[in-house]
């Protein structure tokens, strides 16, 4: 690993000031992704800003929402009584990700900021527009079994690897960002599609940091939830396809539904059109199949990942079937 300067500021302002002044500085908290990327030479920050001294770890009920500090560990969120009661979907998604050791290290903010696991991004001998702009996409005509089927461009077909983020986008979470001023943005607007500049994973600006996530209260969506993750082994593997689903049935009809998919796009992929189709309808296999077909509109395979074109709708149908039997 190339050496670097290490600082541990005691205030949030000192962190954002340092990030604003120094383009080569990066935040470190859990370090589970960043240290790996530095060892591999994928990234080489000249300064690491350790934010673990900041008081941003609380998980607390506030008026109308639950606030989770950016430094809350993945394991702490997954085991929080409050989260298990109000947002079991989030706990399920977190427990589907990584390993117990990694969940004990990784933070909420770090989970959001983690980079793709595209093997071309990781291999510094390969072209990758995300790692080095203008070098091309190795995956496009290479080995792309793990890659995206939605929102792709010829510049990049990488997927965002998080499980947690799939649940958070389904739950309409808000991202609290601090910089020169504080701003709040919908979770769906935090990550971005690759477009012409795949090097940018998200909409965070220089000099900004995530300070918290806020999830609006919605008891109806705590009743029947599933995080269905299809992967190459039973545990400790990234998703081929994952589906987060929450369903509320009243008087035999779907009163509320949330659907989001992982392993398919450069950002957590909310299935809004499928949700709109299902609202007010009977929770039947036929309707679930139609919803899955709507969700798959515009999906595109790149060869090795063509199996996802079948696996994705099947996973949606299975997830919806599971939550409807809970109801």
């Amino acid at each position: 690993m190339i050496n670097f300067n290490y600082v541990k500021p005691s205030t949030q302002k000192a962190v954002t000031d340092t990030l604003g002044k120094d383009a080569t500085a990066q935040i470190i908290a859990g370090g589970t992704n960043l240290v790996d990327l530095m060892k591999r030479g994928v990234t080489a920050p000249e300064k690491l800003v350790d934010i673990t001294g900041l008081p941003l770890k609380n998980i607390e009920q506030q008026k109308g929402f639950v606030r989770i500090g950016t430094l809350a560990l993945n394991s702490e969120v997954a085991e929080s009584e409050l989260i298990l009661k109000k947002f079991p979907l989030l706990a399920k998604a977190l427990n589907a990700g990584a390993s117990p050791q990694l969940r004990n290290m990784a933070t909420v903010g770090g989970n959001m900021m983690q980079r793709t696991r595209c093997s071309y991004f990781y291999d510094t001998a390969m072209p990758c527009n995300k790692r080095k702009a203008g070098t091309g996409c190795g995956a496009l005509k290479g080995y792309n079994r793990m890659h995206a089927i939605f929102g792709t461009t010829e510049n990049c077909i990488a997927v965002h690897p998080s499980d947690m983020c799939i649940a958070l986008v389904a739950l309409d979470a808000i991202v609290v960002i601090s910089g020169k001023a504080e701003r709040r943005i919908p979770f769906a607007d935090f990550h971005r599609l690759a477009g012409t500049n795949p090097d940018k994973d998200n909409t965070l600006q220089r000099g900004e940091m995530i300070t918290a996530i806020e999830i609006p209260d919605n008891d109806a969506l705590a009743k029947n939830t599933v995080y269905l993750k299809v992967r190459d082994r039973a545990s400790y593997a990234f998703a081929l396809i994952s589906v987060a689903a929450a369903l509320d049935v009243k008087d035999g009809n779907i009163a509320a539904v949330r659907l989001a998919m992982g392993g398919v796009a450069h950002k957590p992929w909310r299935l809004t059109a499928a949700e709109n189709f299902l609202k007010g309808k009977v929770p039947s296999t036929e309707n679930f199949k139609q919803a899955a077909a709507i969700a798959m509109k515009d999906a595109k395979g790149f060869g090795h990942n063509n199996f996802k074109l079948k696996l994705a709708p099947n996973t949606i149908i299975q997830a919806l079937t599971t939550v409807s039997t809970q109801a």
Partner: protein
Amino acid sequence: MAHHKEEINSEKETLQHTRRKFFKISTALTAVALIPSKILKAAEDNVDEKVAERFEKQTLTLEVNGVQQTLSVEPRVTLLDLLREQLKLTGSKKGCDHGQCGACTVHVNGQRVLSCLSLAVMQNGKKIATIEGLAKGDDLHPMQAAFIKYDGFQCGYCTPGQIMSAVACVREGHADNEDEIRQYMSGNICRCGAYPNIVKAITEAKQKGEV
């Protein structure tokens, strides 16, 4: 590039003691090719002291297996390398060094973590427990004894990580049945495939209730 890295690494021991001197005398392209632009600029300006700053060691205090240690490390040193190279606690193993195998698992403030992805400087003031700290003198920890009883290993390379993870797994309350044990031990890979016996060992250690 890879060749240059090896050259740098081979000089690591010497460098640790004579970094300032090294940068003062060195105009080697090998070094120049590797260091970030800012340092390069500084080097060109002959501000060698500034260059050396980056490699200055930081003081850090840790409690390792109950013993207070005051150490000095470069920011890039991982907790695993600190334990193995400086404290000569070679029980924690460097398997993949990328957080994928679990062989480096240790407890930090009672929680199991991967020491290969933990920067040592970030552990200042924390309590570290490694496999060396489990036994009390000649009395093996119940989890160690159970691993031996059930043959929970073949080559043994993953075993320190497996045992540290297994102890945490039981203490966390994630060892109630075989499925749960398998799920919560999935961060520890055993290429010999001793999994069935590892599960048996953890099951018994948990049932005995001494973990």
